């Protein structure tokens, strides 16, 4: 078919997604995480198996979402096998996108949320294995469910120059769908501004 909106790699993963969790297989996972919000059209679940060296040996996932959501999770599920938890928790949407040979601009923020589901699964694993101290959710929380913007993304945007809510939206697309995260985002914006640019404010 000519001129598909997505790259061949996206199409291939969309048509033949890898590592989908099937109920009948009884996948014995060590950690499980969710990301996204059905209201915004994408929701994802990730399960991981981890060996005693903290290496991900296998994973399964499920997603409600469009072609790029399905493909990006599928490609991520192949990337993480054999990775250490540390390494896996650092995977960014950009890396997933590169692995997919690109995505349409408007799809990146909304549909690439596999990395967030993966980090939630990793955190879940740490909690299950009695190491809640390693949980990073506190440090990186999804603030905008619709666009999957985390507290870390907000901090990053502040460092890149966002100084008010409007600029923050420009940088992250946060709060551009349902708008419910505005209050929380403004609190974080203030915090990060104080943290990094306290002298400027005084």
């Amino acid at each position, binding site marked *: 078919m000519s001129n598909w909106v997505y790259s061949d790699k996206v199409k291939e993963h969309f*048509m033949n997604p890898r590592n989908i969790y099937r109920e009948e297989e009884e996948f014995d996972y060590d950690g499980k995480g969710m990301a996204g919000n059905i209201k915004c059209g994408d929701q994802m*679940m990730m399960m991981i198996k981890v060996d005693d060296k903290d290496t991900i040996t296998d994973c399964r*996932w*499920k997603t*409600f*979402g469009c*072609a790029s959501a399905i493909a990006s999770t599928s490609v991520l599920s192949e990337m993480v096998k054999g990775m250490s938890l540390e390494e896996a928790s650092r995977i960014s949407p950009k890396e997933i996108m590169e692995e997919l040979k690109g995505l349409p601009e408007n799809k990146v923020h*909304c549909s690439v949320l596999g990395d967030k589901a993966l980090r939630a699964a990793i955190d879940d694993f740490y909690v299950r294995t009695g190491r809640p101290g390693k949980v990073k959710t506190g440090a990186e929380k999804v603030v905008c469910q619709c666009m999957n913007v985390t507290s870390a993304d907000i901090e990053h945007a502040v460092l890149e120059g966002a100084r008010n809510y409007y600029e923050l939206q420009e940088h992250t697309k946060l709060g551009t769908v349902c708008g419910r995260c505005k209050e929380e985002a403004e609190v974080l914006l203030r915090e990060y501004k104080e943290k990094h640019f306290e002298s400027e404010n005084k």
Partner: protein
Amino acid sequence: MKNVYLDHNATTDIHPEVKKTVIKTLENYGNPSSMHGLGRKAREAVEEARKKTASFIGAGEKEVFFTGSGSEANNTVLNIFSCGASGCDSRRNGRSGIITSVIEHPCILETSKCLEERGVPVKYLDVDKYGKVSKKQLEDMVDENTALVSIMTANNETGVVQDISPLAEVAHRAGAYFHTDAVQAVGKMPVDVKEMGVDFLTLSGHKIYAPKGVGALYVKKGTPFCPLIRGGHQEKGRRAGTENTPGIAALGKAFEMREKEMGAEASRLKKLKKMFKSEIKEKISDCSFNGDLPDSLPSTINLSIAGVEGEALMLYLDMEGISVSTGSACATGSLSPSHVLISMGLGAEMAHGSIRISMGRKTQQEDMEYLLHVLPRVVNRLREMSAVYFKETTHE
């Protein structure tokens, strides 16, 4: 591969008879405004088309002019009463307010938003769960500043048809004019401007087997008017720009063909819709129809399927040679799902998981049977990987 086109509300194929007319008219490059032979011949083609178009909607010939699209016709009407120029005909009733509905096409809604920013008071009618506006709400909404009420005849996403005549009456009683965007209705159901009692009506060519790039606007005799496109005497000064002769002739021909084909087609599609509806319920659990009323367009089916996202569903169907469209946010490039379905009170999951199947002239029983064969398989595949459906089935 099979090619089953079920997206006729988006656009249609060109009727073979219409195609002949286009080719024939292309041969004559004369400007309909020229007085020489070539020009007069082109003029004849335009006027012939006007006759057919007007007659199809029960209008007088002088009451119809051609535009470049349905969107242009809609933009024209909405902009009439906010002209503001002192000598303008549109200032006659001294009003500028607009009332429209939340389910209109974006060319109405975005123009309304823009007018609001320019200070025009615009009010929006809600719809009930079936997608219908309420006459009562309109009665409460009209006031002494209401210049225009604009409500679509048939909705493009659901095929829901509004009861235009009583709504137009409410507008008229309040001293306002009434416009209906009938782009999806004309050629699919009987439309008569006199019976409906409207002052303006918009129609479009490419929804009725004519090419893209031609539409028409009905303006009832004696109604205030102000052109959107100025700078020429064409269409009696109502729309400047040299006439798109082949497109206009095609529109006329398309109406001639609709006249012959529409009746039998409507009853045929009604049967196909009935068949599809009863069979799909047997094959797919947790699905529901949106805006499914006895008088909805026979050609349009809007289906929500729990646990699957519309764009993914649409693309899987596309791989199997079936063309449909979706109300999911993803497919439109925006982030919110269909404003029509949301305003009907649909939950996010069902709105994201909606597909629109719109049949047409060439849709046959076997096409719908093919869809009935492919759709359940594709839905099962997506549900197998769905994080939402999984959640529901395991009650976590």
